[in-house]
């Protein structure tokens, strides 16, 4: 049996809208099979993952906390991917953003009594992320170096820099040799939105604002048109007078800044201090978010919530039905797989031909 792709005359609007939902449905089915293999009841598993976290107010707050970095990073990455710049090092930009943001309150602790502390930290964080993303951008623009590999290598370097800082120069002397920096206090802490009911903080607001701004940028401004033209055809972009080099910097700096902002928000809000590990892979999960959201900022908000749910569900399922929280990572990988497969149906119809037609079998 062979799979034959037949190009649609026009791309299918129906499948463009449906594909994320079909992909999610397929993930749920594959997840059920996975639970069966693990010897657990699929209904209990799926309930623990996708329903239970939505039934209590405090866990809705946790959902917002987890969704915020995913959405922030995801919308930035969407601009990168639309313009055909493959930044996959957002995890590193997140870490360096956190490091830059934490610099001031750690080196000058007295600043935490002043209301300027938080704005300065946030700006520094975005700046740190942007600067770190500028490295692969510069190497791509100047030397034509593959940005996928360089941005990924810099993730490992960023994690080692953070590790060195919190074990070395920035370690809290009062922490009994524990590798962590001093806890943020006063104005250096990201305010919580509704402290009465849960921990959700300003991070989710940043995420929603960023998503709206990027939506306007991509859909209502010339710059967004430029992003898409260069992404679809660099040659056409050249004829239109758009600079591909400038676009590399624009896409990387924007996504780096948003990842950096996510990083500093995370340590100043949810975690409260710098420590050796500050992200459960948000930078990589955000790649899935960007594609699940069909590279559209509004879709990315929804996708960010779904991925945040898998993180929360992973933690909840570990407690309630005793499956490892590693299952969540497998879920996330499957989700991206199914999204990409479903996206094929937007541009192609599929026909299953018998082996004889083409004289070969290829599956």
């Amino acid at each position: 049996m062979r799979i034959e792709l037949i190009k649609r005359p026009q791309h299918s609007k129906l499948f463009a809208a449906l594909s994320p939902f079909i992909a999610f449905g397929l993930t749920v089915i594959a997840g059920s099979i996975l639970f069966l293999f693990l010897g657990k009841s699929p209904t209990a598993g799926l309930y623990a993952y996708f329903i239970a976290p939505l039934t209590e107010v405090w866990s809705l707050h946790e959902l917002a906390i987890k969704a915020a970095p995913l959405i922030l990073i995801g919308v930035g990455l969407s601009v990168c991917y639309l313009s055909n710049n493959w930044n996959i090092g957002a995890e590193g930009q997140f870490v360096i953003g956190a490091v830059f943001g934490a610099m001031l309150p750690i080196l000058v602790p007295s600043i935490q009594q002043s209301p300027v502390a938080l704005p300065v930290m946030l700006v520094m964080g975005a700046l740190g992320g942007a600067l770190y993303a500028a490295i692969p951008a510069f190497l791509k623009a100047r030397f034509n170096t593959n940005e996928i590999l360089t941005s990924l290598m810099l993730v490992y370097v960023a994690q080692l820099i953070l590790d060195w800082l919190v074990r070395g120069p920035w370690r809290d002397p009062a922490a009994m040799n524990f590798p962590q920096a001093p806890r943020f206090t006063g104005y250096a802490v990201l305010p919580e939105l509704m402290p009465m009911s849960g921990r959700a903080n300003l991070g989710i607001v940043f995420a929603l604002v960023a998503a709206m701004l990027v939506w306007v940028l991509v859909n209502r401004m010339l710059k967004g048109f430029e992003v898409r033209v260069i992404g679809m055809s660099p040659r056409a972009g050249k004829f239109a007078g758009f600079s591909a080099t400038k676009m590399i910097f624009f896409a990387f700096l924007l996504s780096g800044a948003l990842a950096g902002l996510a990083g500093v928000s995370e340590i100043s809000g949810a975690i409260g201090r710098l420590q050796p590990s500050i992200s459960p892979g948000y930078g990589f999960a955000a790649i899935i978010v960007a594609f699940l959201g069909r590279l559209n900022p509004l879709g990315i908000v929804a996708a960010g919530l779904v991925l945040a749910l898998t993180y929360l569900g992973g933690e909840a399922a570990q407690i309630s039905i005793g499956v490892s929280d590693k299952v969540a990572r497998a879920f996330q990988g499957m989700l991206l797989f199914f999204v990409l497969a479903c996206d094929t149906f937007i541009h192609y119809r599929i026909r299953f031909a018998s082996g004889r037609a083409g004289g070969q079998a290829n599956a």
Partner: protein
Amino acid sequence: MLESILLTIATAATPLLLAAIGELVVERSGVLNLGVEGMMLMGAVIGFGAALSTGNPWIGVFAAIVAGMLFSMLFAVLALSLATNQVATGLSLTLLGVGLSGMIGEAFVGQPGVKMAAIYIPGLTDLPFGRLFFGQDPLFYISLLLTAGVAWFLFRTRAGLTLRSVGDSHSSAHALGIKVIPIRYAAVAFGGACAGLAGAQMSLVYTSQWIENMTAGRGWIALALVVFASWRPGRVLLGAYLFGAITILQLHVQAMSVNEIAQWTGPFAFVPEIGRWLLGALKAVPTQFLSALPYLATVIVLVIISRNRRLTLINTPASLGRPFVPDR
């Protein structure tokens, strides 16, 4: 001392070589599979598990090869049959591999694994430097044979020429009646098998235990090696040993005591001050910076190679990463 350092370099270089030589064939056929890291992890965890439950490292190796191959088929169905974006699909294979291997391997964490024994040939192995040539683990020899075999296949056989033509212009190859998609399937399967084998080397020879995410970016370094080697098997060998050497030397410096460093810097210490300075400088570098060396070296090497735009253009398979949908 020198022999043992060279031996550890070979052990560190072998997984890079295995994974890179497989990916080289994949890319020569015009397919960019960024899932190497994920396939290596699947090979490592399945190989470890199979060896552990049977007590036979060879069954582990075989299981790892099959696992890598099957896992690569997920990529092939999407990227080849469904013509999805290869970059995104490869990435998702890596993300899925990291997740699945972590899940499967949870039961293996902390368990002592099965170690593949080094070969021993009486007489030869006991020669000076004999262990280097006649006393390593079997996968070391397999990696070298595989490299030679791939070089021969790609540049000395008709099938190899066909594979390269598919990578350089899939439309022309298709017009000549060459079956582009099946050839690419075969290339991806070979790449998956090699990555699985590389993973088994990590969990059966290099460490003989399972640690989550134990490949630590080696799959990505292997991808960089293919670019570094400008898609030539001999240069992949060179690159893999260069990176093996960087990995091992930084580990040695991290582990060395001050006295050992003095011993090593001794020959360079024409002037006592220089020796003392070198010693102090090496010990003052935080270990994290030494650990970052392989990753930084990868970036630097990529920059040096890609600076020459024309050279890159000549060597890169022209259809690399472009999906192929035959028109009928």
